[in-house]
């Protein structure tokens, strides 16, 4: 039996504690090296890389059309947004624009996927705070969206629905009907979940004024998405640099100036309502036409050659998702670089979780909305 190593003495009575990588509230494999002064956290150092697969290298070794499944597995709760992000870059690089109908289909699928991703976050955030039940209501709703995905493309979560220059299968009447039915019944269910959170005194007291993120800090750390908007900056890639057909639909960007946990919570819920609004408009405006670009069908799939470099930005559920593609004229990309929003959002945690209690740090890391497939790639 070996000697038990004594705990490192940090002086001033602090204790070093490892939270994670296997821990119920870290949403995967985040490891936080925490220095505790009693209950109060003095220093946090996130350690990541436990889910690292180096998707960028794998994409370099594959054809342009194959890389898509690795993007599915980055933000695996909102896979469609990742596909849109990659295809925005790849289609520009390869010079294969999608037909008009495909753009509308992609908008609908991306927004459905955004709702699905936010629902996962909403449920898991409740679990972080110790609220067991809303999690199930969120997942019941999410399951309806995944059912629509299954009907459209045959897979539930890692859909691989889109392909370069089009989508894999066309919409039919049943899918349109199902989506319409979903967006009709969803807002009422969303209100039930929303009220279950915000009417709760304890929920408010756990979140109001906790984890204040100043806008200057947020910009300097490259924070984007709902976290940035909750700090009072109305920046959304869908408005700032419209891709697909986001300039043809009418929606608002939710902004809050309160900068705390509750603001981030409210912004995400408002985003879900706005997504419903976008889907409602898009499903009516969908034009007829082909659902793929014939230049990228069948065996032409693997013969696409790209040269030069592109960078495409899209608004994923977590924030600004960017893909930087460099091609050297071959059938495989020369360099793929992914700007993952969760990665940047996580880097602000040491600032947010300084001098707060353990319980607050769990709530703060819950509002960052981490998905580790995307942080570690």
């Amino acid at each position, binding site marked *: 039996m070996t000697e038990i190593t004594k705990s490192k003495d940090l002086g001033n009575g602090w204790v070093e504690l*490892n939270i994670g990588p296997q821990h119920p509230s870290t949403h995967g494999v985040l490891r936080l090296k925490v220095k505790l002064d009693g209950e109060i956290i003095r220093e946090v150092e996130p350690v990541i890389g436990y889910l690292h697969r*180096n998707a960028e290298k794998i994409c370099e070794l594959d054809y342009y059309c194959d890389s898509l499944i690795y993007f599915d597995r980055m933000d695996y709760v909102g896979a469609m947004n990742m596909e849109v992000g990659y295809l925005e870059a790849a289609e520009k690089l390869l010079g294969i624009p999608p037909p008009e109908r495909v753009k509308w289909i992609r908008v609908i699928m991306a927004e459905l996927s955004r709702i699905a991703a936010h629902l996962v976050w909403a449920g898991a955030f409740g679990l972080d705070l110790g609220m067991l039940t809303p999690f199930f209501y969120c997942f019941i709703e999410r399951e309806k969206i995944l059912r629509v995905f299954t009907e459209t493309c045959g897979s539930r979560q890692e859909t691989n629905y889109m392909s370069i220059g089009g989508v894999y299968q066309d919409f039919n009447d049943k899918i349109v009907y199902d989506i319409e039915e979903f967006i009709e019944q969803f807002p009422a269910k969303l209100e039930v979940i929303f009220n279950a959170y915000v009417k709760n005194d304890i929920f408010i007291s756990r979140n109001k004024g906790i984890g204040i993120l100043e806008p200057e800090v947020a910009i300097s750390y*490259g924070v984007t998405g709902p976290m940035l908007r909750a700090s009072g900056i109305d920046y959304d890639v869908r408005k700032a640099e419209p891709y697909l057909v986001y300039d043809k639909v009418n929606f608002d960007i939710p902004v809050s100036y309160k900068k705390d946990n509750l603001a981030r919570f409210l912004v995400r819920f408002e985003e879900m309502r706005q997504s419903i609004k976008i889907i409602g408009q898009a499903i009516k405006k969908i034009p007829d036409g082909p659902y793929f670009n014939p230049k990228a069908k069948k065996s032409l799939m693997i013969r696409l050659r790209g040269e*030069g470099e*592109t960078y495409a930005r899209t608004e994923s559920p977590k924030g600004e998702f960017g893909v*930087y593609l460099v091609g050297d004229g071959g059938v495989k990309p020369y*360099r793929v670089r992914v700007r993952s929003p969760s*990665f940047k959002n996580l880097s602000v945690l040491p600032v947010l979780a300084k001098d707060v209690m353990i319980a607050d740090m769990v709530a703060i890391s819950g509002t960052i909305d981490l998905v580790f497939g995307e942080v570690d790639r």
Partner: protein
Amino acid sequence: MVEILEESRGKDGRRILKVARENLVALMANLKDQGFDHLSLITGVDRKDRLEVVYHIHSLKKNEYIVVKTETLDERVPSLTSLYDSANWDEREQYDLMGIIFEGHPNLKRMFLPENWAGHPLRKNYDLLKVQYINMDENGEDYATFDSGDGW
């Protein structure tokens, strides 16, 4: 004013500025004063004979986007951590996967991989056939080995 070697437009219509490595920090400080407050992405590209480092910056207020490129032959590039906080993790990641040494970085450790991992995976000459195994030592820190024997 900083000397810009080359200015062009990418396929997506973004402005690309190319500067020498020595002028990088000066140019970035200049751009930051002009309102480009958001360092979005740092990318290292292995061009086989040289390493290219690409910085994507944009301005939230003016909604403009600029790509800044610089090149290095000896893997060394000045760090931007003094200007942007977001450079911290990005530079660590590029050091980890690409082997670019950012001079002046306060905490240049590997981001994803264990500290003693051999090689930098995104280099074009990285040997994919050499399998490395990750183990955990007494203190909970990871380390990489080439033999699979003592894994848990």
